């Protein structure tokens, strides 16, 4: 097979090596526009040292690369004048130039001599059985087949510049520097005995406010040296055509078209802040060479195989890299946080590191984090404590919240370890029920609350008025299907039916509003009498109060339309009046509708801030269901966590988050990182528990040995 590889970066060279090793079957040509010793950037980092695939594919190259590696186990976090160090990680890095030298020499030894300084003008003119685009982020090969490959290229994250420095670090170092214009970050790491990589980044508006957009190369070096003078400790920043730029996120629906295939950055990029670009590129080369070994002579088959193997892996890294890039783009919002959760938030930013696996890597860090939380945000030398979800919070024994779908389940959930058990939705009046099986606060609750208390937990109740989502059948087979008989009239801010086949509600009059306000206040009184510790007011999911907040359901032309928070505010005030000051009042708040004409997150955050100012002590962040066909509805894993995080960081209110969080590790990570204060867990019973709960068999007679 005649193979033309465009680009002699790590991916292209490694592929050439592996194909050449496969013997006479392949005639390999490598074309590179730059000179052999052209260098861009400084060291490349491998945040996962395991280049196991490379060791198997070419032990010689593996040995040379790993012999050259700078390795270190530590991450240094410099924030608010403190240095926090986390150990137990496995970083390695190599000078990009050195990596290329090793690969070039190995290729030459195998008889492949790249043509350097050779520009390919027309990819379609390449005469080969297989054309490989290993030509990097700006790949000509990819651009030639952009439409067929479904290419998508977009800037991601902050503005950044890639410097070197003669300061030799001994850790992967993150520096967060507060400037007059905003936070500026450094990602720095060593890669040989003399030099470290020093990447500076900040959001574009900060970059402009600092005037970095108007500086030339020398001025920007000088400005960054001055900014980080303390951390550089007299050392210099080194520039190598180091210009400010935006990271380009490259994605393609397909990595091959006909006999043309992409590998490495040409096919996909992953933000540098998780340090996986070079690793992914080299793994691509290995997978592609292996696919040809598996399917000799069957190009299409091999290329499909290669994609099937690599695309899911790359997608996972791109997901993690996207989370990481987004974290650095918004990190300024966390600049008020204490160093401990700030550091843990940084370490867990991409979703790949959690409380549980950091406890494996760096048990001391996690011990200190746990103890810090337990002590209410204070460090004590040598302290030990349970993990963050078990840290007490304002009278709750821990931060685990469980929702009881039926009142009768409350005691059992209290006994299963929760700090707070929430009952509900409970309707404030019979007309405010969702369905005939929606409970109200009449009778029988005090016994359940007593049982919850006896189990050491607190009891809360979610008070709802269904509004235009009322008078429906029980949700056994579906939600939002109207009752055929025995229904009741619906009320809402505007006479717009909620969903297909649902009746139109009546637009509420002043009298209706007064009655609903009284009903909420009355329910709050009954909740006090029943002994509830926590009251949650439902302003989410398209029920009555949420339907006032959303422009998609509130089209009123009176004061309750121009100020959509007005009626929910009146209800909150009325409830706060009845609810004892020392008891927690929670608002379940739909912070965005997920539709263009609905409530947007920015306004949701402002509402959260105002509710907190009026006596809401905890915002339970939810989203969606205000309208049934929300185009941006999202149910991906942890879908509410980024919203809760934003509400907590920007409105500076305590938040509760749920959304199918099923493991203690998720809760510990979310709470430890300061993304939420409490977690609503939904823990399914496992097979092991069923096995343990099953009635034991009759004791068997002892087996006697004959």
């Amino acid at each position, binding site marked *: 097979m005649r193979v033309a590889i465009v680009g002699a970066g790590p991916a292209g060279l490694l592929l050439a090596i592996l194909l050449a090793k496969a013997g006479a079957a392949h005639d390999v040509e490598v074309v590179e526009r730059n000179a052999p010793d052209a260098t861009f950037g400084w060291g490349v980092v491998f945040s996962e040292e395991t280049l196991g695939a490379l060791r198997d594919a070419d032990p010689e190259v593996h040995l040379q690369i790993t012999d050259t590696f700078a390795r270190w186990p530590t991450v240094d976090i410099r924030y608010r004048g403190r240095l926090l160090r986390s150990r137990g990680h496995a970083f390695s890095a190599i000078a990009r130039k050195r990596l290329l030298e090793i690969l070039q020499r190995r290729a030459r030894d195998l008889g492949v001599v790249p043509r350097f300084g050779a520009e390919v003008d027309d990819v379609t003119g390449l005469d080969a059985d297989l054309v490989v685009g290993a030509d990097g982020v700006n790949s000509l090969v990819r651009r030639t087949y952009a439409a*067929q490959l*479904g290419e998508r290229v977009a800037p991601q994250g902050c503005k950044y510049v890639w410097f070197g420095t003669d300061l030799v670090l001994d850790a992967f170092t993150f520096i967060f520097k507060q400037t007059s214009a905003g936070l500026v970050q450094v990602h720095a790491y060593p890669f040989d005995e003399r030099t470290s990589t020093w990447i500076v980044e900040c959001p574009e508006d900060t970059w402009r406010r600092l005037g970095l957009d108007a500086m030339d190369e020398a001025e920007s070096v000088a400005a960054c040296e001055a900014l980080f003078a303390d951390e550089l400790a007299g050392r210099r920043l080194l520039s190598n055509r180091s210009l400010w730029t935006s990271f380009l996120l490259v994605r393609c*629906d*397909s990595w*091959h*078209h006909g006999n043309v295939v992409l590998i490495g950055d040409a096919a996909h990029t992953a933000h540098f802040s998780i340090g996986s670009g070079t690793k992914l590129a080299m793994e691509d080369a290995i997978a592609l060479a292996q696919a040809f070994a598996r399917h000799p002579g069957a190009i*299409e*088959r091999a290329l*499909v*195989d290669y*994609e*099937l193997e690599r695309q*899911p892996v790359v997608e996972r890294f791109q997901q993690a890299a996207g989370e990481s890039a987004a974290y650095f783009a918004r990190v300024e919002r966390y600049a008020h946080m204490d160093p401990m959760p700030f550091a843990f938030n940084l370490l867990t930013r991409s979703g790949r590191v959690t409380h549980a696996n950091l406890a494996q890597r760096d048990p001391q860090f996690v011990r200190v984090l746990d103890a810090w939380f337990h002590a209410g945000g204070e460090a004590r030398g040598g302290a030990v404590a349970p993990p963050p979800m078990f840290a007490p919070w304002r009278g709750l024994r821990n931060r685990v919240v469980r929702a009881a*779908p039926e009142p009768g389940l409350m005691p059992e959930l209290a006994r299963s370890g929760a700090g707070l058990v929430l009952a509900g*939705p409970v309707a404030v009046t019979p007309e405010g029920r*969702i369905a005939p099986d929606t409970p109200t606060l009449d009778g029988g609750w005090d016994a359940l609350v007593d049982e919850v208390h006896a189990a050491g937990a607190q009891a809360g109740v979610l008070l709802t008025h269904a509004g235009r989502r009322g008078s429906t059948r029980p*949700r*056994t*087979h*579906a*939600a*939002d*299907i*109207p009752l*055929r008989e025995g229904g009741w009239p619906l009320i809402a801010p505007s006479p717009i039916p909620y*969903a*297909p*086949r649902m009746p139109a509600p009546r637009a509420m009059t002043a009298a209706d509003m007064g009655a609903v306000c009284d009903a909420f206040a009355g329910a709050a009184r009954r909740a006090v009498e029943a002994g509830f510790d926590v009251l949650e007011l439902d302003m989410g999911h398209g029920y009555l109060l949420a339907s006032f907040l959303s422009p998609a359901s509130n089209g009123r032309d009176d004061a309750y339309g121009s100020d959509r928070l007005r009626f929910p505010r009146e209800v909150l005030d009325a409830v706060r009046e009845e609810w004892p000051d020392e008891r927690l009042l929670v608002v379940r708040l739909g912070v965005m509708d*997920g539709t263009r004409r609905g409530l947007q997150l920015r306004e949701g955050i402002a509402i959260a801030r105002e509710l907190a100012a009026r006596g809401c002590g905890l915002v339970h962040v*939810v989203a*969606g*269901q205000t309208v*049934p*066909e*929300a*185009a*941006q*509805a*999202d*149910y*991906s*894993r942890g*879908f509410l966590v980024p919203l809760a995080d934003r509400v907590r960081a920007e409105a500076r209110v305590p938040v509760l988050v749920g*959304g*199918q969080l099923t493991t203690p590790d998720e809760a510990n990570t979310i709470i430890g990182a300061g993304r939420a204060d409490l977690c609503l867990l*939904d823990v*399914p019973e496992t097979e092991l528990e069923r096995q343990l709960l099953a009635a034991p068999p009759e004791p068997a007679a002892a087996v006697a040995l004959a």
Partner: protein
Amino acid sequence: MKVGIGLPNTIPGSDGRLLVEWARRADAGPFSTLAALDRLAYDSVDPFCALSAAAAVTERIGLATMIAIGPLRNTALLVKQTASVDAISRSRLTLGLAIGARLDDFEIAGVEHRGRGARLSEQLATLRDDGVRPDLRLLVGGMTGPAFARMARYADGYAHNGGPPRAFDRAAAGARAAWSDLGRPGRPLLWGQGYFALGDEDAGAAYLRDYYAFTGPFAEKIAAGNLTSARAIKDYVRGYAEAGCDELVLFPSVADVAQLDRLAEVLA
């Protein structure tokens, strides 16, 4: 986890004799369900017609559309067809619905492509409100947030569109999250699917390439995912079971009753 089998109703050349014989053998085999696919602009047998034929010659096996493209059909006729198959099969029908993926199906039906999600919701609401029977089992497919929401609002469970177990696992998490968000009691039913060819795998791959040609380069990957060995099928079944699938339907990619017999042997 239960394992069902697909009818070859969308494999070109499947005639009535084959479909009926397939249904008879499926009913006698280890399969929980016999499911039909739906395509308008393709050489195929309509799923409701295929399932009525199957209903007539079977006694116990469940029948399912996996899925039928709801918005292609007039709602009243869809309800009527559903009720008819359900009546003929004596309530053995599971109705899986989704919005469909192919523009040409909509063009040939003269139905607007835009707004098909909202129309499917209306159809589901109708089926629930005064449809066939209150407990008719409904499944909804799709991979987007709105599809999960629609499933959780109106259906009893989720119908996944195939792929490796990890893809199913991720979709199942979305389905469960939407279910709990909509306040539905318990958990959604989770159905998965896959293609197989035990023997004649080239013919199977050729059919899948043709059937999925509208997806462009993705068709090759679907063809490469065809399960062509006993081991591949067993791994797939195990992977789905571990991911919490309630019912896995294996669709033939070759229209030959010997395929059904071989699958029955593998599953035995």
